[in-house]
């Protein structure tokens, strides 16, 4: 319960007054503690303590990172971290696995009152507004300004997502996008060209019709009833999710996806599901991928981050009849805008000591370096966020032998930079996404697109206004 999260042996177990108060408030949601701990967020103009770790009286400065990487990806992250720790003597980073992005946010919020915060936290993209509102973050912008850190080699999309009104809040780390997965063998069987996967939703529908009419599979594709594909398509159509320029010019107060684009997307879902061209699959399972493997539906959309896992399963030989193809997400029309990045960013915590903040920044810049990003991408299937990384042998070899891994990078790199592709930023993103999932599910069970949209808009706006009221905005 100490604020140093028990990283330093000397501080472990010492219960200071704040820690004790935090302990008391754990069960009560930290109501009273809210007031007394809110003042610790430093103002955005304060200088970043660059070089504090090198000048620290005791070395190394210990930095804790909370992450949510699964076993396979954690192995690569640990390798990178070990390399960082042995590359210098000022900073030592410890990894703490908090199981999932959702759990990380829950634990982080709890730690705001009870103590035990990390120095660095990996948070899913959608939690950006929440992290800003939590008043517990040192914007990366301060370190960038202090260090005159060069951002020109970064893939712009990845930075822009975490930038709100000129402030870079987090640094991107693990980035992915949704891509189209399909079975080339099934395409061939259905009389489709495996080399020419559908590029628009209209073509996607035609392909599905062909799969079904040729009796290649029960369904043309799986439609995972998950918000991220809907959001991706809204962005590809150059439309916005929320007002105030997707929340980039001011705090969003309502959703705006209920216009022509969103409504026609819902109608497309209703059409595909109603005509049995697509099978609905749950947002919480990988039944869409299993659909390809089991020959139920040879096409689906899924995050590119799953590619590494899929390839390792396919290489097991259990699904020898499947030849995987990967393509960019089909656009809504011929006019393709672009996609926003998914994944997570790294946030520095303002309660940490200057030396720890500096240490965290050193670690971030290490992880985001071209060589490390190349290693990370090869080890996990995430996108390398540095342009120069793509010229490194590790990446060029991977892409040459397994071109599927390049698709997601290209999709993001080709995306034009605008408020739509920056992605939406607003507070109760989890709740709104839950409402979108619900709406898609209700369409799959026969609710009309228009009434699903009407109900969704009501729920989403209620969630946003309730959240805004609760943060006092």
């Amino acid at each position, binding site marked *: 319960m100490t604020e140093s999260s028990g990283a330093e042996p000397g501080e472990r177990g010492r219960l200071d007054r704040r820690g004790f108060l935090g302990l008391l408030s754990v069960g009560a949601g930290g109501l009273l503690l*809210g007031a007394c701990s809110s003042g610790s967020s430093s103002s955005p103009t304060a200088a970043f303590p660059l070089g504090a770790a090198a000048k620290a009286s005791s070395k190394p400065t210990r930095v804790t990172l909370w992450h949510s990487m699964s076993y396979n990806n954690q192995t690569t992250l640990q390798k990178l971290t070990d390399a960082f720790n042995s590359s210098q003597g000022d900073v030592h980073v410890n990894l703490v696995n908090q199981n999932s992005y959702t759990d990380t946010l829950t634990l982080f919020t709890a730690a*705001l009152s009870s103590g035990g915060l990390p120095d660095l936290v990996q948070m899913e993209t959608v939690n950006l507004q929440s992290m800003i509102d939590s008043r517990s973050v040192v914007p990366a912008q301060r370190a960038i300004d202090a260090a005159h850190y060069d951002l020109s080699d970064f893939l712009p999309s990845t930075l822009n997502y975490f930038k709100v009104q000129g402030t870079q809040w987090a640094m991107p780390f693990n980035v992915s996008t949704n891509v189209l997965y399909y079975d080339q063998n099934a395409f061939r069987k259905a009389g489709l060209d495996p080399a020419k996967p559908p590029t628009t939703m209209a073509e996607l529908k035609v392909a599905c019709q062909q799969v079904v009419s040729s009796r290649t599979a029960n369904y043309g594709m799986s439609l995972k009833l998950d918000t991220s594909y809907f959001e991706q398509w809204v962005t590809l159509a150059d439309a916005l999710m929320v007002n105030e320029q997707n929340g980039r010019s001011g705090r969003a107060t309502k959703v705006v996806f209920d216009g022509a684009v969103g409504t026609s997307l819902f109608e497309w879902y209703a059409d595909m599901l109603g005509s049995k061209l697509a099978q609905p699959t749950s947002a919480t399972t990988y039944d869409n991928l299993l659909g390809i493997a089991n020959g139920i539906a040879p096409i689906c959309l899924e995050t590119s981050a799953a590619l590494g896992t899929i390839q390792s399963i396919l290489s097991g030989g259990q699904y020898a009849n499947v030849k995987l193809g990967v393509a960019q997400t089909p656009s809504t029309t011929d006019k393709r805008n672009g996609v926003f990045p998914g994944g997570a960013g790294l946030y520095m915590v303002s309660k940490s000591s200057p030396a720890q903040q500096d240490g965290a920044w050193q670690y971030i810049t290490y992880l985001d370096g071209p060589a490390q990003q190349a290693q990370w991408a090869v080890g996990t299937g995430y996108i390398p966020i540095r342009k120069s990384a793509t010229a490194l042998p590790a990446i060029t070899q991977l892409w040459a032998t397994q071109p599927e891994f390049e698709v997601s990078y290209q999709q993001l790199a080709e995306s034009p930079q605008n408020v739509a592709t920056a992605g939406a930023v607003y*507070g109760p993103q989890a709740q709104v996404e839950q409402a979108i999932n619900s709406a898609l599910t209700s369409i799959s069970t026969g609710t009309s697109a228009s009434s699903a949209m009407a109900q969704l808009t009501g729920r989403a706006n209620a969630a946003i206004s309730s959240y805004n009221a609760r943060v006092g905005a």
Partner: protein
Amino acid sequence: MSDADLAPGAAALGEMAAGRSKDAANGHRRMGRITREAAVGYLFVLPVMAVFAIFVFYPLLRTFWLGLFRVAPYPTIPSKFVGLSQYRNVLTSPDFLASLGRTGEFVLLTVPIGIVLGLALAVLADARIRGIRFFRTLYSSTVATSVAVVSVIFFTLLNPTVGLFSYWLGIKGGNGILQSNTWALPAVATVTVWQNIGFTFILMSAALQAIPEDLLEAARIDGAGGRSRFWRVTLPLLSPTVFFAAVVGIIASFEAFGQIDLLTQGGPDNHTNVLIYNLYTSFQNNDFGKASVLAAALFVILLAVTLVQFRFVERRVFYG
């Protein structure tokens, strides 16, 4: 007064007066003793009361109190006192009423069926046949399973892509049972009934065995057949147990969380979003104010159910 008994005649009066004053003195001493005993009694109760106060009453009151605040999603932002308006808003919201309705449906789907099945199995297992111990063990075995394990097993069985049930039913892909607006709640209820059947079975078996053999033999001699004996003797004698099982079942159904979280997460489209899951989601959204109101509502409902039980037990409406 024994002094007075021994002293007849005129002297008795004086003796009695003395006795009375002695009695009064005794009275004072007795009161002193009672107070002392009470003090010792309270001293013994104190640790329990302290534990209750800290871990039950305080959080309870705190929950009601917290319902008066609009709590920010982060403790770094001060909460705002909004009084009873939050209770009013939450308790009249369609969201709350819908989840209350779902909870009601869930209770109706789980409790009566669970009791009927548990009782039926108990009656079957009451038969004196070879190998009945095996069946008794089998029937009560679900007690030893955890809700998480059961849920994961059923989740896999019901999966539309790889599930065994889907395979048997000839379903390939599409919405499974857990993704169906119509069938998701009955499916979760079925898992709940399955999970709880062992407990109900044990409860009913114990009650069956507690029925004196004489009564059933008397009924037999009085001309009642097997079915008639069950309806006219066994069932009425089981009624307190049935009632107990109903109350416990209702409370358990109101608090059924694990299976819903693992099977449907409140979906599809909120069709399994019962009160307790709504409460959980509110906590997940760090909306402690709303969550507290929901918790208070849940508390009041369960308190009412419990009071009904106490009332019935106290009145002994069954027999005895």
